[in-house]
């Protein structure tokens, strides 16, 4: 009996030596372990044995069956692995071939910068208000404390629709329109298109500004400094500093011109900052009392700060764009340069 068992063992091992596919493994299983397989047949011989031998015979056959199952399973695992690997080989691709295009567009660089500015201030509690692009003399000038004989109203600078209606030359009317509707606390940004009669490499007749306004109790020049310090760190680098210097705008008093440390040379002096280490980026100040009063806000109780940013200027500095007109040409080769997030 043992001899018979050993023969089977040898045969199984010999058969396993030559199998190389899952189909052959299947055949092998059938040959030995299947319904009419050799080992299964051994079990059937049991009835021919003496009853006292049956138990030990059965045990031996079962052991053999288990042993053979195990070695076949082991081989099966190997063959399966080999087959998988072979399949992978057949499925191989040239990973250096170009991928199929899954392209994405982008916002205009001016709006990328605009959104970044809005994000910076929205995080500090500002809302966004957009007023009309074509506005009245009152909102564009009078309510901003720009008297009738002010040089800023000159025909050379402003584009008019009629004596009393004009293409807004700045986003400052947004200040007035907000204050008329809302009582403090006010924190708003007013972005949008603005227009002036100017057309060269650094001036476009249409450009974009963002006006910022805060009106509340006890607003001071220090608050302006604090807000703008935060802003420039978000907009440029975390080590960017601001510098105030006196200036003049009819709608703010005191008025300041705000410079930032040059984002290219970090204040050492380069061609961008003309060697000064500083770049002028915006005008700002404490809202003129007259402006508050004209919009119905009690200047004895409240004070305000305001600032006005030119989006083109910041965009041109940020991306190193030399000619403002490039921004309005719609050249796809230009627009595609900004789609990296």
């Amino acid at each position, binding site marked *: 009996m043992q001899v018979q068992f050993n023969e089977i063992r040898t045969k199984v091992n010999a058969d396993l030596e030559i199998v190389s596919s899952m189909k052959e493994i299947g055949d092998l299983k059938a040959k030995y372990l299947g319904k009419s397989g050799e080992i299964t047949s051994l079990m059937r011989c049991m009835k021919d044995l003496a009853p006292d031998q049956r138990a030990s015979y059965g045990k031996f056959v079962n052991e053999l069956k288990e042993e053979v199952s195990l070695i076949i399973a082991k081989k099966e695992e190997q063959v399966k692995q080999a087959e998988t690997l072979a399949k992978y080989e057949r499925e191989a691709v040239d990973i250096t071939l170009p991928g199929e295009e899954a392209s994405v*567009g982008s916002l205009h660089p*001016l*709006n990328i910068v605009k*959104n970044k500015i809005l994000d910076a201030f929205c995080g500090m509690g500002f*809302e*966004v208000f957009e007023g009309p692009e074509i506005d009245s003399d009152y909102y564009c000038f009078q309510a901003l404390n720009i008297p009738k004989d002010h040089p800023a109203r000159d025909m050379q600078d402003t584009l008019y629709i009629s004596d009393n209606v004009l293409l807004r030359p700045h986003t400052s009317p947004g200040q007035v329109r907000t204050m008329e509707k809302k009582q403090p606390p006010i924190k708003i940004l007013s972005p949008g298109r603005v227009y002036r009669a100017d057309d060269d490499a650094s001036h476009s007749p249409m450009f974009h500004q963002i006006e910022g306004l805060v009106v509340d109790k006890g607003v001071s020049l*220090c*608050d302006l400094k604090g*807000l703008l310090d935060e802003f420039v760190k978000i907009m440029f680098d975390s080590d960017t500093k601001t510098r105030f*210097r006196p200036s003049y705008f009819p709608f703010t008093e005191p008025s300041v011109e705000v410079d930032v440390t040059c984002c290219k040379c970090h204040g050492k002096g380069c061609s961008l900052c003309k060697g000064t280490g500083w770049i002028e980026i915006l005008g700002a100040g404490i809202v003129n009392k007259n402006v508050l009063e004209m919009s119905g806000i009690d200047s004895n109780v409240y004070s305000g700060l305001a600032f006005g940013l030119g989006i083109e200027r910041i965009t041109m500095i940020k991306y190193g764009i030399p000619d403002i007109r490039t921004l309005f040409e719609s050249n796809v080769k230009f627009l595609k340069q900004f789609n990296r997030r």
Partner: protein
Amino acid sequence: MKAPLSWLKEYVDIDCSAEELQAKLFSCGFEVEELVHFGANIDKIVTCKIEKIEKHPNADKLSVTQVNAGKYGILQIITAATNIFEGAVVPVALDGSTLFNGEHIYNGELRGLPSFGMFCSGEELGINDDFYKGASVNGILILSDDLPLGEEVKELLNIDDFIFDINVTANRPDCQSILGIAREVAAVLDKPLKMPALDYKVANDISTKDMIKVTNKAFDLCPRYMAHYVSDIQTGESPDWMKKRLFSMGLRSISNIVDITNYVLLEIGQPMHAFDMNELEGNEINIRRADNGEKIVTLDEKEFSLTNDNLVICDAYKPVALAGVMGGLNSGIKEDTKAVVFESARFVRDNIRKTSRMLGQRSDSSARYEKGVDYFSVETGLKRALHLIDELGCGKIACDGYDLMDKPIEQKVIKTTVGKVNAVLGIDVPENEMKNILERLHFDVKMDNGNLTLNVPLYREDMESYPDIAEEIIREYGYDYIKPTLLKTSAITNGGLNDAQSKLESLKNLLIGYNFFETITYSFVPEKDFADFNIETGENGDKIVRIINPLSEDMAVMRRSLVPSMVKAVAFNLNRKNYNGRLFELAKIYTVNPDKSVELPIETAKLCFAMFGENESFFTAKGVVEGILNTYCAGKDVKYVKPEVAYLHPTRSANVFVDGVLIGSFGQLRPDLADKYNVDKPVYICELDYASLVSVFTDKIMFKTISKFPAIERDLAITVDVKVSCAEIFDAINEVGGEFLQTIKLFDVYQGDQVEKGKKSMAFNIVFQSTERTLNVSEIDDTIKLILNNLRNKVNAELR
């Protein structure tokens, strides 16, 4: 405003370098746009005496000279100059020297003889006759023969100055003068200001009022007019110091009287005019508005026809000056002028600007008046001019004069508190520091327990209230003291974009995901765009918003559609061989408000996009429209209807309706229009009305149960006439599809050999499902029969 350092030093002891002063001025609000070091280049140009002049042996036009160059010894110089003579002292540029313009001079050889330098002209030293007599001569500058030899000419002649070109802000007209700048310099350096002398001797027997009658009939345009008579005028040359000053400011000397008026304009900032008494008929000066059509010929011989808006200075009969702009032809100072009337006035700046613009006539005087002249400098200017007459001894000054004012000058007083000023700044500037700063700025300060009473200097017409004072304090105290705070006393507000603003951004992001690039084009367009694109403009174009002073015809009207700009953007790209692209713009269009009582035009937001390139078609464009609608208008009834849009291809375009609302149109750009704009590839363009689109946005998303029961799918292939639209078939299926019909998908359209001519085959996949039970195959078979029947009836479809 230009200011030479040498001149500023007359009023302030400036003990810092020009660069340091530049930084100081910058810190207190006076940006120096340019600091020019006049004569900076000049180097190694020394005084030499010509000892001997001989003819050059090899050249007719050259001379060989020997010069005594002091410590540099005797040098041989070859020259072509003809105005030199033995004994003349001249400037010589030595070996390795530099001229005014930066050019270097080296030893050389001329026609075989060595030359050890070059004689210089006045121009090569950057100077003219006003700076040094004889410097304008065509030839070599002959210097005074008592100068030491071998010394630097630059130092001997003081050709070394710094010119500050200062940006003076519009609120500080008082600083449009050397004195004004000097006041600021004194304040920022904390030095005393030395005022120019204003005193003069008068001839007690001469009275202005005896000689002339001055009447101001237009105080609204001329709030202050002073006139002073000077007799026994002796016209002649101005002294060297005055000529040099004028030279340093780029002015030519003309004659003493004219120079005095120019000098006072520069120094005090007060325009002056001197009328020749002989030319004032009737011994009268009348300040009045011109009559309509009245004529004047100005000094530069130009004739102007005036209106009632122009102010003129007249004698008894005629205008003799265009007030504040320019004198009349014969009223100026001549060599034989015997007596003059000096005018010093304040004219309203707006009126001067209007007159100057209207007539196209400008002068130094009008430029100054446009910036604003205060009441105070009218008097200072006149006194200074009379002082100079006295100093130069060129006339006898009347003992009285006219001073016609609309109201007496009042001392402006600002009352405030230290606390209020500091509240604006957000810091605590010490009281004594405040007092000191304000006194440096010539305020008269009374400080009592934190209460401030300030007498404002008369020339500071910009000072109104405590914020102005705060600015004066901080610009002198220093902006570095401003420490950042984050609205420490302010209420907390909830910032961010509102819902509508966020939706707009998300729509843009959707388009970006579809490979679109955002563009921005001008809001103004040429009017001819409207005709080219058949854009509706109302009767006689009365809906068009026009710019009355456009920069050019191409930017003359506000646009009524974004499409023309977009087509031009595409053309721009194709011209540059950018053959593929997707562009969008979200911007406004403008129309005159039909309600005539509303002045402001209506601004309407539009979304426009264009797609061009080999992979684009009507259906890629429609895919984008569908993408937008699936995202924002899910579940709404969408219809595509043949449009009447003139700029689109008539059979490849559609109007889009959502729930019956027209939201816009899209399709291929009409080919002949494309040709006109040199667009030689098909372009697909879409313009949607943003507000209409928003009006059909699906407001909220509600969850729908996902069925647990199996779906039954059926594929139907039918043949129909080619004219039958897909929408008609969908409608026919939907009509009888029953409650379990879930989706209909078109998966094939075929036209060709396998189907009858004039027919097409279309294959649809139809899915049925219930959320409550498993459907019976037989009930779906019945529904399919109904569908086929309906298709046969409605669109004459045959099952393939």
